[in-house]
């Protein structure tokens, strides 16, 4: 609970939650934002505040399926791009055979050396018939993809 | 008083294996003289047991030396699941190459992946600069 450690831990309730722990949990599910904690804006918490913003940033940037790309870890190797079954089905002659995408229907593609997510509604973890697909995670050399 | 400063830190023998790291290679393409390349190159990855033995923590500097040269680099935990006491890893760079012997035993190939060194706590000494 790194997030909790960075909060004031005074349980002041100014954020509307009963405890700092509850606020931390709410932060993780993006129910609240870092700014919603008033004491954090005091100078004494300046460092913590910035750290928290950094930590929550990728979470806020995530998509409905909760797919997060840790850009700083990504090699741009394309393993996830080629291993994703949806990519293969939607682009059998591009991503499916390991090459550049030939259409815009991919979920994952590499640009400027880093993987990026598009068309996330196509992901097998999403929608009515969702399954717990993890192929893009287990093929990644560096744990750059995560689902929250 | 930091009495320890005046005592010589104990030295331990290691074998260094060099490896490639994509982030270091990417930094190299951008600038060989930059801070990023230095940060990613002047590193030694060790077994957690060895780090304790040296009396340092991750991020501290250590002196790595042998008859060929001496460099001060930053310690990192290797994170490998199998313990590898006595074996340490350094990315291939001018820092690791300072420790490689010119003697190739008549083969013309230096022993890049088998560098015998002594390592000790650098007690805060700064990372060696290259040029």
């Amino acid at each position: 609970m790194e997030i909790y450690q960075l909060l004031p831990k005074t349980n002041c309730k100014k954020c509307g939650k009963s405890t700092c722990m509850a606020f931390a949990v709410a932060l993780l599910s993006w129910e609240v934002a870092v700014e919603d904690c008033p004491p954090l804006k005091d100078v004494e918490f300046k460092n913590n505040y910035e750290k928290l913003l950094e930590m929550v940033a990728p979470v806020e940037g995530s998509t409905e399926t909760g797919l997060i790309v840790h850009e700083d870890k990504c090699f741009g190797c394309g393993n996830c791009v080629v291993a994703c079954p949806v990519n293969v089905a939607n682009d059998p002659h591009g991503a499916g055979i390991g090459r550049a995408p030939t259409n815009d229907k991919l979920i994952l593609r590499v640009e400027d050396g880093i993987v990026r997510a598009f068309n996330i509604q196509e992901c097998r973890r999403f929608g009515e018939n969702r399954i717990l697909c993890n192929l893009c995670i287990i093929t990644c050399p560096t744990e750059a993809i995560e689902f929250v | 008083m930091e009495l320890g400063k005046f005592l010589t830190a104990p030295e331990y023998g290691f074998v260094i294996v060099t490896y490639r790291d994509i982030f270091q290679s990417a930094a190299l393409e951008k600038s060989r003289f930059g801070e990023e390349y230095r940060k990613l190159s002047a590193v030694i990855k060790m077994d957690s047991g060895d780090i304790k033995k040296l009396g340092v923590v991750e991020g501290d500097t250590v002196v790595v030396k042998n008859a060929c040269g001496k460099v001060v680099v930053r310690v990192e935990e290797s994170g490998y699941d199998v313990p590898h006491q006595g074996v340490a890893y350094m990315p291939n760079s001018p820092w690791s190459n300072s420790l490689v012997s010119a003697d190739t035993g008549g083969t013309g190939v230096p022993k890049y992946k088998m560098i015998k060194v002594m390592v000790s706590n650098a007690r805060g000494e700064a990372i060696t600069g290259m040029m």
Partner: protein
Amino acid sequence: MVNCLNKNYYVCTGCALLCDDIEVEVSGDHITKIKTVCRKGFSRIGGCIEPMPCTSDGKSVDITTAIKDAASILMNADNPLIFGLGNSTSGAQKQAIELAKRIGAVIDDSSSFCQGPIIEAILHEKIHTCTLDDVRNRADVIVYWGADPSNSHPRHLSMHSYFPRGEERQHGWEDDRTAIAIDVRRSHTAKICGNRFYQIPLHTDAFLIEALIDALSGKVPKVPFEYDIKKILELANVLKKAQFGVIFAGLGVVYSIGDMGTMTRLMDKLNEVSNFHLIPMMGHYNMRGFNQNLFEATGYFNRVKFEKRENGFDVKHGVDYSIMEVLNTKKTDAALIIGSDPMSCLPRSTAEYLSEIPLVSIGPCENFTSRVAKVTIPSALSGVECGGSAVRMDGVKVTFEPMIKTARLSDEEILKRIMEAI
């Protein structure tokens, strides 16, 4: 540039995979976006922040003066050395070989202290090899041995060796391919291989090879270190059952076994019981091109000296003409370094000698070597600012066009002009 589906694809020269499906968006002279390129290639194409200056004796000069001064250094030397060229086009390499003949130089490249032994075995057809396209279309058992392509050749697994669907591998990697890593540490590539990772102690590759040969011959394998023999038998069994097997040999195994004799015997054995190929994990994008071009010109793939005679020259070859030996023995009295940084990649005590002799350094970016050079000449970044051709790690020739324009000359043009000035 391959034109397909109305898209222009470029080639990345970030490593010897020479990925040929790169899309770039350009505005003016700037690249604004690069698609399908890995982190390493992105960084190479982006270029450096310390471009090579044009200097002679520490002073800024125009290119004509720099070329004239470079020529006079090389002309006045008794034992010049030409080194580098792994990051140059084949055209530049051929030009450099001609220059070496003209001035009676030693010519060598970094294969001299890395993949040399494998390339020799392959060029002499002692080892069965294949192309990366064969691997993609047919390979079912893939061995990364002492290699970590995830870091050194990032798209290796996704474009060629493990994840893509291929003609005879339609079901994808989960069902159709087995990836195996043999290494001294759990590298990023080894992680992907999961429980098909065989960790061995430092410098024991030769013992593992012997044990595998025994196992493949139906004998009980043994190794002089603690190891579960069952694992070796299991590995031998997977190799034996391969329909189309390939070993990607990295520096880890090359440095460990020294000469290729043991590996050649393993390959022979594997081809007796199944069907196996070996591809060297060449680093620089055109290192293999240098080896092949020199081989075509002389019959040797590196470590060559053109010894001048009254009319013509003798070709000498051997360890005495390796960059390590000519610098260690201080025989070299001037050097031309092209697209390479020996000051940073050779043992420091060997490289330091370079700062004692007149040096000419050609390349797109400043480096440790150029900082001690007498003459520095900026060249176009090949694959980005100039086109040409190169040889991929598997021996396939790839041609490429520049992505953007530059005023800088290519290595080839510079070498040609040095030649003219001699």
